């Protein structure tokens, strides 16, 4: 076979697509990222906050989008459709159509003048029709690319050329191009990743919800926009009918999910319980202390993710009302309010008036996406999600094409991000031999040594068309800049960021022998990298650069005060000049990479991680504490879809053992870890010292055994009481005695969701139900009762819950105030519980009692976390760098996690996470060296007292106290340059390069001059 292509097509620019693209582009592949709309960002960009951290969605997403937008090896194709995909793994030929934007992205400066003048208003799809946009528009304020687009359906000119055309007249950069045409072309790629996401269920057809009849009944997506500061009511949270702030809101769960009657969606959408709680909490915050009453009407509360149960608990404590009831009838009431009629478990009817109702709509596949999948020959399941196997969770039915995110099954953001990395790993597995063959690399001339030179500062003042110049007197600012100390050159440009000005700037730097540059224009957040690159091209260290933000933070916000704005621009330039004078050239810190991985734990997660890396050609040392491979997986009978676990495990172990790139160290633990990303050295308990560039922690977890205490339920006392895994052992052994059983009872949440372990173990509902089904297979006449608190068979797992009920397995709910009573009478187990619907005591006499006991973290995780300086949750699971967007990374670079040590999860998620961890690891392993932060902390040991405040406030363990010297030391490889240490130090002994106190003071004092 010829060498595979070194590029990948990613279809869909939501968070999953962006993550997959970034992973691939950063590990040596060229990526075409195709997005149908005019900007990437997907659903996440529409959200207000994200659970369970209440992070601002746009804030955490935006940096990723910007990164993808300007990545040298990501070809961003917006407004583009995929038409056809031919070929197979290693070589696909993709036909795409790029639809016209009618705005030249190279010219558009996103000043917004066009939209201001555009006379045509249409409902904004980004705001789900709750707000309006113009015919020429930005999808959303932080859109990437930050380029306007014309909606041909709405544009007056495009419909009737000759009319209107205002945008073209007012555009300061001549970016409008009404003659733009669709363009079709082919892309040659080695693999394809589909991350096409979902669409929210449209409840218009569910007449009983009153949606589409009552204005104040909205969907949860609409409510996100109502909450969002960038939404139609700018975050003031108004209800649609009268723009009043709602005081009482109800959320109705499972709208379009778990409904095989009206919605034809038998699956659970997985995310709605959490987002409803989040919205209820955020809405209360928006309206001030306790002013707003929020109530959530639900069937089963599904808070099965990491930190979710605590979030739920907190919401309850904060006064969010939870009603276990679905609501059939929503009646209009006075003042546009809505009257909800619902039934308590006792059958009593209650009526409550709300001034707004939010429908927690589920997730479904867009019909256009279904068609695309169909055209591409991708198999869909009966719910129109892409079919995948649990053991290959991101592989579609067509080899070489991977899938991630909600396209495969409804899932939350971290899970989507995890899968995105896993999909990237899948593509990397096919294409690794062509790594770096199609990528581009920027080459720069050697840098001039400017240490000995006095500052020769050049100032470039941008007019930004008229964006700055119409308010600020740019000429005056330019002349003023020339008078500042150290400034030897100043110039005004129409568009400083235009390609010709950039080229000219480079020439000027060389000609004038400038050694510092200030650009007074827009925001460094978008443009600093561009100008810094220009400096490098001119042979100047990129850190000898500052920006004065005289547009976003001056001309745009003081339009009515031109005089003051001009003065302010001068101040900002003066401040930047003062700051840049003190800037020093900084090293581009390269850490050479030992291209080998250490994987700790040889369960499913560890083995999959190890194989994923080894298959891409990276040597792996796989360390396992026990004297055999397999970990927890050895105890499992089958997956919830019925795949035999042991067969899979055997195959996995066989592959690991025979893989030439994997060294397995059994019966071995970690003694000591030194170094940081690229350069770890780990000493094992068998004396071996391993040099490795990255580490993946996959040490698993344990099953809680309720030998004592409140969750004992005769465990260890009666031989017929088992944990789930013990019953699996009997299944594996094909214990014939099981066939003879008459009655089995399962108790859920044994040791989970209780005060001492306040989290949901995520896997047990599904596992227990699958076991009940297995028992039914063995003996269809067996009576089986499941005592549960909430059934949490999220996603497609809901179908086995349905199947279980269909097979006559009876589910009886209990809660912490009404625990099952388990007794022994003459050696026979007797279980009693109150059925909340009948309100009657129920008695069972099972000959098998199965306890769905908690998954609990291992006790030795703490030690490991210290070795790798990674954090832990209160419960004792390992804590990733960011719950939403960095689900497999640790805050410590070069260390990743996978599997149960992160949180309880089923095997398919473990596999995806293990592949994701491998993908993240290739970002380091694929390089000779990694770049570490240049703007880092540095200790002046003469001043350091060794008090270690700096070490204590460092979130990255980059600063530590060195006992030998009695001083603080910085590991620049770990430092992110946040400066918390600097502000904490009383002795001025630690500082951040180019952000020292002296430099900041210079800027501050410059601001006060005149």
């Amino acid at each position, binding site marked *: 076979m010829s060498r595979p292509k070194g590029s990948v097509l990613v279809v869909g620019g939501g968070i999953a697509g962006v993550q997959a693209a970034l992973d691939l582009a950063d590990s040596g592949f060229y990526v075409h990222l195709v997005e149908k709309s005019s900007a990437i960002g997907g659903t996440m960009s529409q959200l207000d906050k994200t659970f369970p951290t209440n992070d601002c969605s746009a804030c955490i997403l935006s940096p990723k989008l910007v990164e993808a937008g300007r990545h040298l090896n990501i070809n961003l194709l917006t407004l583009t459709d995929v038409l056809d995909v031919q070929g197979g793994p290693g070589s696909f030929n993709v036909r795409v159509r790029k639809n016209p934007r009618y705005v030249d992205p190279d010219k558009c400066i996103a000043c917004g003048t066009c939209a201001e003048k555009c006379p045509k208003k249409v409902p904004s799809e980004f705001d789900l029709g709750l707000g309006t946009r113009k015919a020429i528009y930005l999808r959303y304020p932080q859109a990437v690319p930050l380029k306007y687009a014309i909606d041909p359906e709405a544009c007056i000119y495009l419909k009737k050329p000759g009319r209107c055309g205002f945008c073209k007249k007012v555009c300061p950069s001549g970016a409008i191009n009404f003659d733009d045409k669709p363009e079709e072309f082919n892309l040659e790629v080695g693999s394809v990743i589909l991350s096409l996401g979902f669409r929210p269920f449209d409840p218009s057809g569910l007449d009983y919800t009153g949606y589409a009849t009552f204005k104040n009944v909205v969907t949860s997506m609409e409510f996100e926009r109502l909450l969002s500061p960038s939404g139609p009511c700018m975050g003031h949270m108004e209800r649609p009918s009268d723009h009043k702030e709602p005081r009482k809101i109800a959320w109705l769960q499972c709208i379009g999910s778990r409904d095989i009657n009206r919605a034809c969606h038998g699956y659970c959408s997985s995310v709605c319980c959490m987002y409803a709680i989040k919205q209820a909490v955020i809405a209360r*915050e928006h309206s001030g202390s306790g002013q707003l009453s929020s109530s959530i009407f639900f069937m089963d509360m599904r808070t099965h993710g990491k930190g979710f149960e605590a979030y739920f608990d907190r919401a309850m404590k904060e006064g969010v009302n939870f009603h276990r009831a679905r609501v059939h009838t929503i009646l209009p009431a006075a003042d546009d309010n809505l009257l909800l009629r619902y039934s308590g478990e006792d059958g009593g009817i209650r009526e409550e008036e709300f001034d707004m109702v939010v429908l927690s709509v589920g997730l479904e596949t867009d019909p256009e996406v279904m068609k695309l999948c169909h055209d591409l020959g991708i198999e869909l399941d009966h719910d129109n999600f892409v079919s995948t196997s649990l053991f290959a969770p991101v592989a579609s039915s067509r080899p070489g094409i991977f899938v991630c995110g909600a396209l495969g099954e409804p899932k939350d953001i971290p899970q989507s991000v995890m899968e995105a990395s896993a999909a990237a790993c899948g593509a990397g597995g096919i294409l690794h031999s062509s790594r770096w063959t199609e990528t581009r690399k920027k080459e720069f001339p050697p840098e001039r040594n400017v240490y000995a030179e006095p500052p020769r500062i050049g100032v470039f003042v941008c007019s930004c068309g008229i964006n700055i110049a119409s308010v600020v007197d740019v000429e005056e600012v330019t002349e003023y800049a020339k008078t500042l100390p150290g400034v030897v050159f100043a110039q005004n440009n129409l568009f400083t960021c235009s390609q010709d000005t950039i080229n000219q700037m480079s020439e000027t730097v060389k000609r004038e022998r400038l050694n510092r540059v200030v650009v007074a224009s827009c925001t460094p957040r978008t443009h600093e990298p561009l100008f810094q690159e220009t400096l490098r091209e001119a042979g100047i260290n990129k850190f000898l650069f500052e920006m004065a933000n005289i547009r976003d933070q001056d001309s745009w916000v003081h339009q009515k005060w031109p005089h003051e704005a001009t003065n302010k621009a001068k101040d900002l330039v003066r401040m930047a000049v003062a700051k840049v004078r003190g800037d020093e050239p900084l090293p581009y810190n390269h850490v050479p990479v030992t291209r080998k991985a250490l994987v700790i734990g040889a369960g499913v997660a560890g083995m999959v991680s190890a194989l994923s890396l080894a298959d891409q050609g990276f040597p792996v040392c796989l360390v396992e504490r026990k004297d055999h491979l397999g970990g927890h997986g050895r105890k499992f009978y089958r997956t919830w879809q019925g795949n035999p676990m042991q067969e899979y495990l055997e195959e996995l172990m066989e592959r690991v053992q025979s893989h030439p790139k994997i060294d397995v160290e059994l019966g071995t633990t970690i003694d000591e870890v030194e170094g940081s990303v690229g350069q770890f050295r780990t000493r094992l308990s068998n004396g071996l010292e391993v040099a490795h560039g990255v580490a993946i922690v996959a040490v698993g977890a344990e099953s809680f055994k309720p030998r004592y205490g409140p969750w004992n339920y005769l465990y260890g006392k009666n031989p017929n009481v088992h944990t789930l895994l013990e019953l699996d052992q009997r299944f594996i052994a094909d214990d014939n005695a099981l066939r003879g059983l008459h009655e089995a009872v399962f108790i859920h949440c044994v040791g989970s969701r209780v005060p001492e372990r306040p989290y949901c173990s995520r896997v047990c509902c599904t596992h227990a139900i699958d076991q009940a089904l297995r028992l039914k297979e063995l003996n269809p006449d067996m009576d089986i009762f499941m005592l549960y608190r909430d059934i949490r068979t999220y996603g497609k797992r809901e179908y086995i819950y349905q199947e279980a009920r269909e097979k006559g397995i009876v589910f009886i709910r209990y809660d912490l105030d009404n625990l099952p009573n388990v007794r022994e009478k003459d050696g026979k187990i007797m279980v009693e519980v109150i059925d909340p619907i009948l309100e009657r005591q129920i008695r069972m006499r099972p000959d098998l009692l199965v306890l769905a006991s908690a998954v609990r973290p291992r006790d030795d995780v703490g030690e490991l976390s210290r070795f790798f300086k990674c954090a832990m949750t209160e419960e004792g699971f390992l804590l990733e760098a960011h719950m939403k967007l960095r689900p497999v990374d640790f805050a410590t670079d070069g260390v990743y996690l996978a599997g149960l040590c992160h949180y309880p999860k089923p095997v398919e998620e473990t596999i995806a996470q293990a592949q994701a961890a491998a993908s993240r690891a290739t970002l380091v392993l694929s390089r000779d060296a990694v770049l570490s932060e240049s703007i880092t902390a540095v200790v002046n040991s003469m001043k*350091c007292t060794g008090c*270690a*405040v700096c070490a*204590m406030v460092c979130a990255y363990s980059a600063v530590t106290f060195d006992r030998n*010297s009695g001083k603080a030391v910085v590991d620049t490889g770990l430092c992110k340059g946040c400066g918390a240490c600097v502000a904490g130090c009383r002795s*001025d*002994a630690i500082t951040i390069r180019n952000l020292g106190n002296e430099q900041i003071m210079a800027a501050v004092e410059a601001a006060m001059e005149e």
Partner: protein
Amino acid sequence: MSIVNQKIGGEIQTIASSLLESGEVAAFLGYTKGSLPGMMRPYVARDSGEAGNLSWSSFCVINLANYLPALLRSVEPPRRPNEPPPEGQLPKVGVVATGCWSRNMVVQVQENQIDRSRVVIVGVSSRGMVDRRKVERLVGNREITAIEEEDNVLIVRGKGFEETINRWDAVRDNCKTCLHPDPVIYDELAGGLSGDRQIPDRFHEVEEIEALSVDERWKWFQEEISSCLRCYACRNVCPLCYCPTCFVDDSRPQWVGKSTDEVDTALFHILRAYHCAGRCTDCGSCESACPMGIRMRLFTKKLQKDVIELYGFEPGLEADAPLPLSTYKVDDPEDFIITAGKKGDQK
């Protein structure tokens, strides 16, 4: 003679003597009588003979913790900067510690300034130290030639007078509002323990200032520091001020001018106090050392009050509780954050 203090002094001598004799410690830091009446000075005994010079009275106003790090270094074998300490146990020193001093030692341990295993602490429950200025005021600022201390009174003699004053009337303000006179950590005890005290208005001095208007407070502050000579005695006696280069001496950047300019003096006092936030144990050394009688304790006391109010923390009481500025709680109070009309703000 104060029977209590004499007894304590005797016990300190005995303990110090035996520690030095046995070689357990290389030096013992305590107090000895000064040359002026009512003056005590820190004293290091290096052998059991010198232990006889140790003494104890109500005039031990300077916090011994301040000298402890240097004393520890002085008994180590000499080494170059950044040279690792030699293997094995380094020599120990003994030190006397009252409640506040011991709390400072806890902070010093937390801040890596002393190695607890190298310090033998002889704990003394403080009965409150006497403010010499108060004594002077109580005798009408006449020249004092001798002060004799009894358990509850001070007999003050000068040219042509002898007055007996109530000892408690002359006790320092910080001691009067001290809740924990007993040492928090110690290895030996001299004298007995007296238990924690209940003081309902321990922050009354601060509250009185807080009750003033902002302009009155500014006036008070300006007046309070107007006599400051920038002699840094307050800083020099403070066990928390151990920076090799103090911010006032820094030239890059120069945070504070070095003159007695009012603004620079004000900034010096504000920053000095702020650096003590969450660390100061209100030992009163600074005030006791100030030649101009500036009540700079009020600044640190204000911070002490706020730290308790906001974070429920008092320094030195628990060895493993992180210092308040080196930690946080997710739900720390943030009433001071301006919200510009957003949530919860009354419109």
